[in-house]
């Protein structure tokens, strides 16, 4: 069923495609994060902009990837942009939702305390709001990275130059060669799971205070009353 010798003979190519996969994913996450951060911070300040920003990024998200990847071919040719532009567009909704949620989660009391102790607007943003928003921003990076890894496999549709590990899925299908499909697919899954696990670690490392229960306590979310006699 599976031709292991083929896999052993193509480790070089698998390595190259893994790097391509990681390259397309990291460029997308970096550019997507930068654009979304700007849009999200703007939308948090100008509340009226939030609806349209979410609506537009949501609309982009619903365009089938099998259409959006070919769409840029006539415009940008077979350059990396052809894959990266749609990948970035798909990442916006995930990023913006999480960044906005991150800033919204900063308690008003904390902001007032910062104002009361004489923070300037810029200092308050950098030293109070940003650190408190970080857990949800990092959660957004993780979601966007994993979703991008999945979408990179589909860029193989554009042409053999793209696809990362998804290239093997498309080429294997064209040659009706199950081993190649399997190898590309298994490696893509391995990459997605590995990146997910690394980013979970990073999330915990960067925000050691963000154990969910502690966050709930810190920002004063009411907990359900269970025992008898409470509140009497």
């Amino acid at each position, binding site marked *: 069923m599976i031709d292991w010798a083929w896999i052993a003979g193509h480790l070089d190519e698998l390595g190259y495609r893994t790097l391509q996969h990681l390259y397309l994913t990291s460029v997308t996450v970096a550019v997507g994060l930068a654009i979304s951060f700007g849009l999200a911070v703007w939308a948090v300040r100008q509340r009226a902009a939030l609806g349209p920003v979410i609506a537009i990024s949501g609309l982009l998200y619903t365009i*089938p990837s099998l*259409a959006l990847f070919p769409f840029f071919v006539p415009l940008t040719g077979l350059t990396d942009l052809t894959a990266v532009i749609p990948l970035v567009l798909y990442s916006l909704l995930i990023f913006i939702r999480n960044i906005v949620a991150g800033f919204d989660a900063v308690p008003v009391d904390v902001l007032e305390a910062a104002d009361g102790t004489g923070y300037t607007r810029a200092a308050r943003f950098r030293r109070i709001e940003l650190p408190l928003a970080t857990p949800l921003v990092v959660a957004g990076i993780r979601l966007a990275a*994993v979703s991008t890894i999945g979408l990179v496999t589909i860029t193989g549709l554009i042409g053999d130059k793209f696809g990362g590990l998804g290239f093997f899925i498309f080429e*294997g299908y064209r040659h009706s060669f*199950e081993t190649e499909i399997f190898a590309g697919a298994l490696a893509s*899954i391995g990459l997605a799971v590995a990146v997910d696990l690394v980013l979970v670690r990073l999330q915990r490392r960067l925000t050691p205070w963000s154990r969910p229960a502690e966050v709930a306590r810190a920002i004063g979310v009411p907990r359900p009353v*269970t025992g008898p006699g409470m509140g009497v």
Partner: protein
Amino acid sequence: MDLPAGIAAWFADPGHWAGSAGVPARLGEHLALSAAALAIAAAIGLVAGAWVGHTGRGATLAVNLANLGRALPTLAVMGVVVPVTAAIDSQAGFKVWPAVIGLVVLAIPALLVNAYAGVSGVDRDLVEAGRASGMRGWQVLWRLEIPLAVPVILTGVRSAASQVLATATLAAIFGGPGLGRYLVEGYAQLNYPMMWAGVILVGALFALVELGLAMSQRLLTSPGLRLARGAAV
């Protein structure tokens, strides 16, 4: 011919509305594929989620598995099962089964997590009251926890359904059924009107199903819950 006129001409051509590659046939395939995947995923995800939520056993494992499931690229899940499915059936093993399995894996996390969160989030006082009035375990689950969890469960169903409908286009990569065929064939033949007609059809189907699910969510939620929520606001 510019693209909007080309798309309009594509839709106006009666040839595109008949036969096995016509819009009704492809639409039917798309719905059948999505519904089959969703039904299998619901049978697994809702049952497992409700059971874990009811008993409280295996909750961490279930949530971790669901999170892992969310990370899996659907096209890769389709590819990884091909050697097995193609060995069983050389036709459907390429065209249909990988897509069904990929979509089932895609849909399970949202269904499972919401069923678990909905059932385990039911007020413990109500569960105690149910037990005290003589309900057995499965009666508590079926007549008390699940009805109260319906809004949360249906939110999961909605999110799973829209993910499945959008992702079902991927079946076309392996020559499978559904509206994705217009996208893949449109690109392969550089027939952009066909490709964008496919995008419009997927978008219209998506919007219609969203609307239908939103309405059924209203209908299926117990009037008491609707009232309670309205009163709380």
